C-alpha cells in the first residue's frame, strides 16, 4: 500500500445532545482504508459502528453532531463540506448499504425508479442510459432477468434479493468506497454466504474499497484486510486481520475472539466476556472496559492513549496481552 489512504478518519467524535445528557456515541475513533481495501469495523451492539458509518456520509440527524475530528476522503475533509457538496459525494463516491433489506427499499416505488434516481442524482443522463446502467448493476449482483425485476416492487422480492438490489444501487455509480452496515445479519446463513462472496468479488473486480461493519468476527476472518475494533464508542485496536485474530493485544478483542466458535479447538467451551456494555450516558473518564476487564489495574481509571506497538498496529490499553 503506497501513498495516502482513500479514507482516513482521525479522532472522530459524534455526540448526541439529548435532554438526558450527552451520549458520546462515537468518541475518538481513528482508522484508515486504502483504495480497493476491505476494512472490518467490529464491536458489540451499541458500540457506535453505524454512527461512525453515518458520520462518514454526513447522515447524522439532530440532536447528533460531529463535534471533533477529521474525515479525509481522497484529499477532502468531509466534515468541512456544505450540504450540497456532501450530497454530491453520497451515493456517488461513497455508498452505503444497511442492515435490514426489508426496510431499505421504499415500499411504494418500483425498483427501476429507485435505481434510476440514484444514477440521475449524479449524472446528467437520459432515462434510457440510466436504465441500461441499472440493468448492468443488477446483473453484476447476480440477479437474473433484470428487465422484469426492474418493473417489480420491493414486496415481490425475498430478503436476499432485496439486499442484492440495495447492493446494486450502491454499485451503480461506481463508488470508490462502500460502507456495508451488517448487510447480511438479517439474512439466513446460505444467503449470507452468497452475498458475502458476491460483494467481495464485485469489490475486488472494480477496485472498490469496503468498510464492512459487523459484530461477527468470523465473517471478518475470510473477508477483511484490516480490522478496527470499537468498544462503547471508542477506538480499541486496529491492525491487519491476521494480527488481530491471531495476536489480539487488547483484552476486549481477545474476549471477542475467544467467544467465536473456532475451527481447531473443537470441544473447548466458549468463553463469554462477563458483564454488559456500559451505558454511554453515564460513562465517566477512564477505560470504559475496566468493569469487565480481567487485566484491569488501578491505573485504568485514567484513559489510556493510543499507542503504536508495532508498525501498522494501533492500540488503546495500559496492559496489552503479550
Amino acid at each position, binding site marked *: 500500500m503506497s501513498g495516502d489512504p482513500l479514507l482516513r478518519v482521525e479522532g472522530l467524535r459524534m455526540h448526541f445532545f439529548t435532554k438526558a445528557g450527552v451520549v458520546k456515541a462515537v468518541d475518538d475513533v481513528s482508522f484508515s482504508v486504502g483504495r480497493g481495501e476491505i476494512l472490518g469495523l467490529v464491536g458489540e451492539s451499541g458500540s457506535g459502528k453505524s454512527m461512525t458509518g453515518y458520520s462518514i*456520509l454526513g447522515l447524522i440527524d439532530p440532536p447528533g453532531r460531529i463535534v471533533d475530528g477529521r474525515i479525509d476522503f481522497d484529499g477532502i475533509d468531509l466534515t468541512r463540506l456544505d450540504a450540497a457538496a456532501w450530497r*454530491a459525494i*453520497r451515493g456517488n463516491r461513497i455508498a452505503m448499504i444497511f442492515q435490514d433489506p426489508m426496510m431499505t427499499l421504499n415500499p411504494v416505488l418500483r425498483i427501476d425508479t429507485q435505481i434510476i434516481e440514484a444514477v440521475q*442524482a449524479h449524472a446528467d443522463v437520459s432515462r434510457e442510459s440510466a436504465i441500461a446502467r441499472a440493468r448492468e448493476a443488477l446483473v453484476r449482483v447476480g440477479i437474473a432477468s433484470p428487465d422484469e425485476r426492474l418493473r417489480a416492487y420491493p414486496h415481490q422480492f425475498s430478503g436476499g434479493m432485496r439486499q442484492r438490489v440495495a447492493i446494486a444501487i450502491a454499485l451503480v455509480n461506481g463508488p470508490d468506497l462502500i460502507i456495508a452496515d451488517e448487510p447480511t445479519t438479517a439474512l439466513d446463513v446460505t444467503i449470507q454466504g452468497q452475498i458475502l462472496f458476491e460483494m467481495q468479488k464485485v469489490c475486488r473486480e472494480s477496485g472498490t474499497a469496503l468498510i464492512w461493519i459487523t459484530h461477527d468476527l468470523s465473517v471478518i476472518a475470510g473477508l477483511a484486510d484490516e480490522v478496527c475494533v470499537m468498544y462503547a464508542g471508542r477506538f480499541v485496536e486496529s491492525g491487519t486481520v491476521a494480527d488481530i485474530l491471531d495476536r489480539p493485544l487488547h483484552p476486549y478483542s481477545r474476549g471477542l475472539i475467544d467467544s467465536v466458535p473456532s475451527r481447531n479447538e473443537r470441544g473447548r467451551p466458549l468463553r463469554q466476556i462477563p458483564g454488559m456494555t456500559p451505558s454511554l450516558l453515564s460513562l465517566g473518564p477512564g477505560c470504559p472496559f475496566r468493569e469487565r476487564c480481567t487485566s484491569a489495574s488501578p491505573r485504568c481509571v485514567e484513559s489510556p492513549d493510543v499507542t503504536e506497538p508495532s508498525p501498522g498496529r494501533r492500540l488503546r490499553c495500559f496492559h496489552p496481552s503479550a
Partner: protein
Amino acid sequence: MLAYAIRRFGQSFFVLVLMSFLVFVGVYAIGNPVELLVNPQADDAERIRATAALGLDKAFLEQYWVFLKGAASGDLGRSFVYNVPALSLILDKLPATIELAFVAMVIAIALGIPLGLVAGLKPDSILGRGIMAGSILGFSLPTFWVGLVLIMVFSVQLGWLPSNGRGETVTVAGVPLSFLTADGLLHLAMPAVNLALFKLSLLIRLTRAGTREAVLQDYVKFARAKGLTQGRVIGVHVLKNILIPIVTVIGLELGSVIAFAIVTESIFAWPGTGKLLIDSINQLDRPVIVAYLLVIVTLFIFINFVVDVLYSMLDPRVRLGGAASH
C-alpha cells in the same frame, strides 16, 4: 378487477336496503306528520282522508314494501310538504352542498398537507409548534361558534364578506355553480373556511404524524445515502408513503363533510341539502328525510369505492380483487 367491482356492487346494494329499512323504522318513530300537515280545525274525516292520501293508513311493513317497489323504479316518494318527488328536491339542492364540501376539502388539503409536512419535519421549531397549536384550536372550537365569529368579524365589523346565500351563480351543464363568479367566491369564502377548519386540523395532524414516522425509516436514510436532494427525499419518498393513509382519510372525510355540512349551511343560510334536511325534520316530511339519507349513503359508498381504487394505485402491496389481477 371486474369480479371485485361486482362483489363491491352487491355489498353496496345490501347496505342500501338495510339502511333504508333502518331509516324507515326511525322516521316512523318520530311522529305523525298528518298532525302538522292538515289544518288544526279540520275534522276527523279530513284527517283520515289525508292519512290515506299519504299512504299512512297502511301497516308499517306494507308502507315499507310500497316504498321499496317505488325505489326499485327510482321513485323515493313525494314530499308531503311540497308535493314533488323527494329525490328531485334533494338533487336540486345537492350541487350547492357538494360545491361547498368540495371547496372546503380543497382548502383543507391545500393547506393541511404542506403545514403538516413542515410541522413533521421541524417538530421543535417555533413554526412547527405554532402549526400544532393552531390545529388544536381548529379541533376544539365548535363549528357554529367559529361561524358566528367569522360573520361578526368579516360581515358585521369589516363588511368585507356577505354572510348568507350562494351569491351569483353560473350554470354549467345544468348545474348552478358559485365558484366561477367573483360574487359567488365571496359568498363561498366564509362557509368553506368554516367547514374546512376541522378537516384542516385533522389533515395537519395526520400528515405530521405520518411524516415524523416516515423520516425515521431506513428507506429515507437510504434515499439520502444515494445523494438525492432533500426535495426529492421529502416530495417522493416521504410523501408517497404518507399519502396512503391521507387519501383514505380524505375520502372518508369528504363523505362526512357532505353529510355534516348541516351546521355550516344553517349558519350561512347556504341553500344546500343540510338546510333542506333540517326543514324536513321540522315538518316531519318523511319521504324527504328517507331520500336524503339514502342519497348520502349512496355518496358514501361511491366515495369509498373511489378511495379503494386510489389506494390500490398508491400502494403496490394492495391489489384489488386478489393476486391474479395485475
